[in-house]
């Protein structure tokens, strides 16, 4: 401890981890530098794959919206405009790195290989969680805002305790940063130096509440208060997201702790199919952000680089089209699981006798009717 002098408070001054492998890759405005872009080490096939995945998930998003409008889904929340984050982030991770999403990360799950038709059964009212998280290292969607963030941190704490080298991606929206769970989890991550990358998808809206009414200060500035670095980047540039997540994940993997990435983007659709953005949003915003469309921009750059041509673009569009049709066909033909199993089947590993009795009574009452 300390005497009464300047160092008197030295013990309460925590220096933010000086090392920051992400910052050098970006301009002060959050754009990936040309220099960093040239050093990504992605070959043409990999660059094309980023494009292809963005096209695939956007088309699936559109198809899901169609399905909702046709009454095949109860609800749909578009991620239109956020494809660069979904594709860039997942591609930057190792396949055994776990992802803890909120509820808008359908695209991320697709990139991870979860079958989109299976996933849609959630929005069709058939299941609360249609995939096995262990198979895809992809946690169930979390609907209560920000509540998944402590799960991600706990999982990352566990990776460290097991001396394994996976890292965890925790993704959430701008609105989520207002919740207490978000703060508690950020502080835990800092205190336990957990291998977790926090990825805020700042799409400017929490349903109808704009960032200006949601967040005092700025989201990225908060990282410092938790003792780890953070950066605000252009969330509509798939390569920027890829570069930032990859560098932050590498840093976490080597034991240097958490990192916060604030990826700035824009929710081009409604909050969900139940929402009516005309009540609170100006069309002019859409236009401005439409000009920054992540797919259009990336396509232009790829052409520029001669990595892609109109033939390939058309081919990928066609692939996305048939994938969307296949998704629709499979979804609408999927059987409805039997009620007993759907309602009682997964509640307990070790179901109490009274619970099993209730299930039996329920199932026989169905036969009855």
């Amino acid at each position, binding site marked *: 401890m300390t005497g009464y002098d300047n160092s008197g408070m030295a013990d309460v001054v925590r220096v933010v981890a000086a090392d920051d492998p992400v910052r050098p890759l970006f301009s002060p405005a959050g754009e990936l530098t040309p220099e960093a872009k040239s050093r990504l080490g992605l070959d043409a096939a990999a660059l094309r794959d980023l494009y292809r995945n963005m096209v695939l998930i956007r088309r699936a998003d559109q198809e899901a919206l169609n399905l909702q409008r046709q009454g095949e889904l*109860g*609800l749909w929340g578009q991620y239109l405009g956020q494809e660069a984050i979904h594709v860039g982030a997942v591609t930057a991770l190792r396949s055994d790195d776990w992802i803890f999403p909120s*509820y808008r990360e359908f695209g991320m799950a697709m990139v991870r290989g979860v079958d989109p038709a299976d996933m849609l059964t*959630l*929005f*069709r*009212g*058939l*299941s*609360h969680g249609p995939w096995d998280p262990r198979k895809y290292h992809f946690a169930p969607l979390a*609907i*209560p*805002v*920000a509540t998944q963030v402590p799960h991600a941190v706990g999982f990352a704490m566990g990776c460290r305790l097991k001396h394994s080298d996976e890292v965890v991606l925790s993704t959430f929206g701008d*609105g*989520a940063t*207002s*919740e*207490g*769970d978000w703060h508690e989890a950020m502080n835990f991550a800092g205190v336990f130096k957990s291998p977790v990358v926090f990825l805020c998808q700042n799409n400017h809206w*929490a*349903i*109808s*509440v704009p960032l200006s*009414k*949601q*967040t005092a200060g700025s989201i990225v500035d908060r990282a410092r208060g938790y003792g780890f670095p953070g950066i605000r980047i252009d969330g509509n540039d798939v390569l920027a997201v890829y570069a930032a997540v990859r560098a932050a994940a590498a840093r976490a993997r080597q034991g240097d702790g958490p990192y916060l990435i604030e990826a700035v983007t824009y929710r081009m659709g409604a909050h969900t199919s*139940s*929402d*009516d953005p005309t*009540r*609170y949003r100006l069309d002019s915003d859409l236009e401005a952000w439409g000009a920054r469309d992540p797919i259009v921009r990336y396509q232009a750059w790829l052409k520029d680089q001669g990595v892609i041509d109109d033939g390939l673009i058309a081919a990928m569009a066609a692939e996305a089209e048939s994938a969307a049709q296949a998704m629709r066909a499979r979804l609408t033909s999927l059987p*409805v699981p039997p*009620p007993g199993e*759907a*309602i*009682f089947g997964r*509640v307990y590993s070790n179901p109490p006798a009274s*619970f099993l009795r*209730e299930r039996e009574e*329920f199932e026989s009452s*169905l036969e009855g*009717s």
Partner: protein
Amino acid sequence: MAKAINLSLRDALTRDENVLIFGEDVGALGGVFRITDGLQKAFGEDRVFDTPLAESAIIGVAVGLALRGFRPVPEIQFDGFIYPAFEQIVSHVAKYRNRSGMSLPITIRVPFGGNIGAVEHHSESPEVYFAHTAGLKVVTPATPADAYALLQTAIDDPDPVVFFEPKARYYLKEEIDPAARVPIGKARVAHEGTGVSIIAYGPTVSIALQAAKTAAQEQISLEVIDLRSLSPLDMDTVMASVGKTHRALVVHEAPVFCGFGAEVAARISHDAFDLLEAPVARVGGLNVPYPPARYEKLYLPDVDRILQAADAALAYG
């Protein structure tokens, strides 16, 4: 009912300048159910405002605003999202007056219940958590007229009230009498009958009434009690009914185990011990987490299950 609640809020805002409405998306959007539609426009951003996405703070600042002399009417967007505010409600809203002598005239509005085909966390029935919490008053209307009048009473009440709105009944329409008031703690006989007393509240009242109608066709007479107030519970009205019928069943959407129906059944069984001609039945949600939408009709109480329980009560012994 949505319109009735909107009108009730409007009249409260007009009548008392200390009434404040706030929560997630209650401003420009008018709430995800449009309950606060037009209120911000009419009363300004100081009276009706959006908050950041933080339920515990929404209730916590309501406490501070009440201490400063306001009558806060915070909205919790869905039943399933009241849990982050649980500590503020249980440890402060319910207990603050007991430790300070200062009243908290807060009305917490919560759309609750299922049957709307929603995704997880949007169809919960958490009412008993609050009914068990001493210091709170807990009410829920079943009709637009009651929604209007009960909300007026709740907002005027000097004590904190949790106001549960049966969201699956928002569509109900009815003439509103702006002078009408419904006291907290007074149940109503929604349908007179002689055979079995069906005790319901909120979303299950209309199902109970359907059951009564169906039963009537078979010359079975069911009485339907709409509790309206869960805490305090109006046992006088309940016992008056059971005094007639000598048979009772309770209906709610929440899981039966330790649900509000347990209190009602325990009380009736105790107070009407010598009168009862059949055990008090409970018809409610299954003892599982709320299921996916496709299965909710099988989870929720329905007319058939009510009629079966009523028949059993009548056939008993």
